[in-house]
């Protein structure tokens, strides 16, 4: 028996590795081992007020900080009977567009692209692709700026609160982000063209099942009250446990998810497959141009999906900024009850993020958070196993197999730190 290891998986967030166990040329197992320690956030917030919870929960993640905050807000507002005003909802959508640009620019260019171009890192790409790296950093800077304008800070902004915003972005700041978005759209178009021109290996290909939120009004978007499944079904977010069926595995601190005993994928490719027909603007044109059946079975296409989605987000920021500006600042809506439950679901850049709360007499009684990476882990392992089997059958060298496996894992844009928020380690 032989083991092929990627001991420390580089260019992902958190501490993970890949182990392939081989019997001759036969692949016995492939595991994405999560070494990151448990974080116990759900227990930490028990007994806190909903307002305090909102200051703790986003600390799960420094890049999806607004997704965590927004998902928690949606769950808690339902639990407390709060209906947010229209301007609040629009400003929340705007902040999510900023986070999407920020995260997708970092992942596509600096984490995934070096593999496709044959470089060990973005640093090594600097001499030959310096302008592309700078373009990615300009986009990331802009995404960060939109997050700061809407939420108050680049990381862990506290403006979005239950029932409203502590402070809405100023007209001047909104005009600035509008102007800059228009400037950056050509950069995002070039990014889509670059990612469309890449050679996506076929090794991981297999039929896949995709899930994403169903954005309201038949539009593309990052939040919703129901979940679309690529098999044509749709379920209310309150049934999130039936969709995710979390379980613990021995080799990982992160929980796993299965839907009807099968792995599934969440993320930009899932959003495109479930809601791609709702895209508009240049993003829609480029999606139509580059979408094909391989998207339905190749997880590497998530990189191209993220590039198209980043363009869509940039194209929508000016319109969303206009809508926010057009409305007067409303008063903050207050809770109508102190006991209740509710589930929020938003699309973090790397997939659907659930926050479920049960509030009793004004305090958090139960918190349950299911992250996109925890949902994706089983499918990552499935596609890595196929990749290992097919590459070994094609007599690929160990180093090539390692890279092939890393490309699959990285394509999912995993956040291992997020995925390990709560698993108890039990040794027997």
């Amino acid at each position: 028996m032989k083991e092929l290891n990627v001991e420390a998986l580089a260019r992902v967030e958190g501490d993970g590795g890949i182990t392939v166990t081989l019997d001759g040329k036969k692949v016995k197992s492939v595991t994405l081992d999560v070494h990151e320690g448990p974080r116990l956030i759900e227990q930490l917030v028990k007994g806190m007020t909903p307002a305090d919870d909102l200051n703790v929960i986003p600390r799960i993640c420094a890049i999806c900080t607004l997704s965590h905050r927004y998902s928690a807000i949606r769950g808690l507002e339902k639990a407390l009977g709060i209906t947010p005003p229209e301007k609040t909802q629009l400003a929340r959508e705007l902040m999510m567009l900023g986070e999407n640009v920020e995260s997708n620019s970092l992942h596509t260019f600096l984490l995934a692209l070096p593999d496709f171009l044959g470089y060990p890192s973005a640093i090594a790409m600097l001499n030959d692709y310096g302008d592309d790296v700078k373009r990615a950093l300009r986009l990331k800077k802009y995404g960060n700026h939109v997050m700061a304008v809407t939420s108050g800070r680049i990381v862990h902004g506290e403006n979005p609160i239950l029932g409203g915003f502590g402070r809405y972005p100023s007209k001047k700041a909104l005009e600035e982000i509008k102007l800059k978005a228009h400037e950056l759209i050509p950069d995002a178009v070039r990014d889509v063209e670059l990612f469309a021109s890449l050679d996506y290996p076929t090794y991981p290909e297999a039929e896949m099942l995709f899930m994403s939120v169903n954005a309201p009004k038949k539009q593309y978007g990052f939040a919703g009250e129901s979940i679309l499944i690529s098999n044509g079904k749709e379920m209310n977010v309150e049934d999130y446990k039936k969709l995710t069926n979390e379980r613990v595995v021995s080799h990982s601190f992160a929980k796993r998810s299965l839907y009807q005993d099968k792995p599934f994928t969440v993320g930009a490719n899932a959003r495109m497959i479930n809601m791609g027909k709702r895209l508009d603007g240049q993003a829609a044109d480029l999606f139509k141009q580059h979408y094909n059946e391989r998207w339905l079975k190749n997880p590497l296409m998530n990189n191209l999906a993220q590039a198209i989605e980043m363009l869509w987000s940039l194209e929508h920021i000016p319109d969303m900024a206009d809508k926010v500006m057009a409305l007067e600042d409303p008063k903050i809506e207050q809770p109508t009850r102190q006991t209740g439950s509710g589930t929020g679901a938003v699309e973090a850049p790397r997939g659907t993020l659930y926050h479920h709360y049960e509030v009793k007499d004004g305090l958090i009684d139960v918190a349950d958070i299911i992250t996109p990476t925890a949902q994706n882990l089983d499918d990552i392992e499935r596609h890595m196993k196929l990749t290992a089997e097919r590459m070994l059958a094609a007599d690929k060298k160990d180093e090539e197999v390692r890279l092939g496996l890393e490309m699959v894992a990285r394509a999912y844009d995993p956040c291992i730190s997020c995925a390990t928020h709560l698993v108890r380690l039990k040794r027997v």
Partner: protein
Amino acid sequence: MHKLRDAPGETEAGLKARLEGVAGKSKVYVLGLGNTDRADDGAGVLVAEALKKLFPSYSYSEHDGVEGTVLDISEKDGDIVVFFVDASELHAPPGTVRVIEKERIRETEITTHRVAVALMASMLEKAGKKAAVVGIQPGRIEFMGTVTAPVRAAIGTVTKSLANLMRAND
């Protein structure tokens, strides 16, 4: 927290000499990194926040956006050095300070959450600027913990040394 290869520690006088050696007569920018929610891990940000009061145009922290700040500095004219200040695993007692030049910064420090300091330093170098990391060994990095006494002292020493250099090279 930044992970660095082993390097010798600095005394206060040694730190002054090392900073001056890297900077020469260049205009000094400071970019403080870290997570202030995690006790000593936020040492770099605390240094930058203290320096902001004295040199607001030359001091930045993680909260200002690392990549954007570096991008802006790389496009400025003139002789410039950027010191990234960060809690660093130096395998030394808490509060130990070391200056690590670009060549010694590990390149694998790029994650979903943060662009590698090595990439930032390489970009600056390509634009004709200099860069180095000022690493501070943390003692405690637990969530919601408080900054330990040796690291608090190191934050004071690094702030003072950088402020003197920024003043001299202004």
